[in-house]
C-alpha cells in the first residue's frame, strides 16, 4: 500500500522542476512556504500571483494622483493658512500611500498554491474581505488555460480555471505567468495523486 504522505514519484514535468523565483515572485516553484491549513507531509509545488505587468495601471494612477496634488497646490484658495495647506498635502499623500499599499496587498495576498494534495486559492478582495477556496487534486475534473490579447501572448500570462466535481467551488488563478506550464504541472500532480491513492 502506498502511503498518501510519501514523496510522490516524479514523472513528466515534475521531474524537471527546480526551485525558482520568477517574475517578481509571482511564479514560485518549490518554494519555502507554509500555510495555516497545511497538512503533515504536504509539499508545496507552486505559489502563484498575478503577473507584475498587470499591476502597472494602479502604479500609473498613483503617479498621476501625485502630479494632481502638485497641480491643485497652484490653485488653492488664499484664505487657507500655510499649516492648513500643509495638512491638505499630507492628507493627499496619505491617500496615495493607502491606495498604493492596498493594491500591493491585494496583489501580494491573492495567492494560488498548488501542493501534491490540493489546489488552494486565497483572495484578499477588500479591506475586510478574504476568501480561501481549496479542492483536493482528486476532485479536479477539468483544467482550462485561457490567454488572450497582445500583451498576454507577448509576456506569457493568462488565466487558469480549475473545474471541480459536484457542488465544490471552482478555482480561478487570474493573470498568472506561464499558465500552460501551470496546467501541465497540475495535470502531472493529479496523475501522481491518483497513482498514490
Amino acid at each position, binding site marked *: 500500500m502506498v502511503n498518501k504522505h510519501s514523496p510522490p514519484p516524479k514523472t513528466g514535468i515534475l521531474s524537471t522542476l527546480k526551485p525558482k523565483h520568477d517574475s517578481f515572485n509571482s511564479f514560485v516553484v518549490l518554494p519555502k*512556504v507554509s500555510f495555516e491549513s497545511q497538512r503533515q507531509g504536504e509539499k508545496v509545488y507552486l505559489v502563484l500571483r498575478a503577473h507584475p505587468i498587470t499591476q502597472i495601471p494602479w502604479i500609473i494612477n498613483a503617479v498621476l494622483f501625485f502630479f494632481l496634488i502638485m497641480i491643485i497646490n497652484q490653485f488653492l484658495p488664499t484664505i487657507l493658512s500655510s499649516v*492648513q495647506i500643509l495638512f491638505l498635502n499630507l*492628507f493627499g499623500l496619505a491617500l496615495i500611500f493607502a491606495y498604493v499599499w492596498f493594491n500591493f*496587498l491585494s496583489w*501580494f495576498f491573492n495567492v494560488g498554491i498548488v501542493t501534491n494534495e490540493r489546489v488552494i486559492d486565497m483572495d484578499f478582495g477588500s*479591506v*475586510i474581505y*478574504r476568501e480561501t477556496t481549496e479542492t483536493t487534486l482528486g476532485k479536479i475534473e477539468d483544467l482550462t488555460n485561457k490567454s488572450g490579447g497582445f500583451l498576454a501572448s507577448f509576456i506569457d500570462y493568462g488565466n487558469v480555471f480549475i473545474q471541480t466535481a459536484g457542488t465544490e467551488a471552482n478555482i480561478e488563478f487570474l493573470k498568472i505567468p506561464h499558465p500552460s506550464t501551470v496546467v501541465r504541472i497540475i495535470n502531472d500532480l493529479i496523475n501522481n495523486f491518483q497513482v498514490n491513492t
Partner: protein
Amino acid sequence: MTDINFLTGVNGQQLTVLFFKIFSLVFSIMYLVYSLVVFRQTQIMLKTIHIEEAGTISSPVFVILFSVLQLVFGVILLVFSFSILVF
C-alpha cells in the same frame, strides 16, 4: 421686525475655515480606523500564509513594516488635525 439669520456674525471665510477644520478631523479619524483595519487584516493574512522568498527582505517583516508606517501616517494626520482645530 428683523430677519432671522443663523449665520449672523459669521462670514464666508470663517465658514470655509470651520468646514476645513471639521473635514480634517473627521477624515483623519477615518484614515486612522482604515489603517488599523488594514494592519489587523495584514497580520491575519500573514498567519494564513507564510512565504520565505529568496533574495529579498523577509516578506512578513516588509509587509508589517509598511502597515505600521500607514498607522503612523494616520496618527500624524490626527495630531495635525487636532492642532489645526485648536490653533
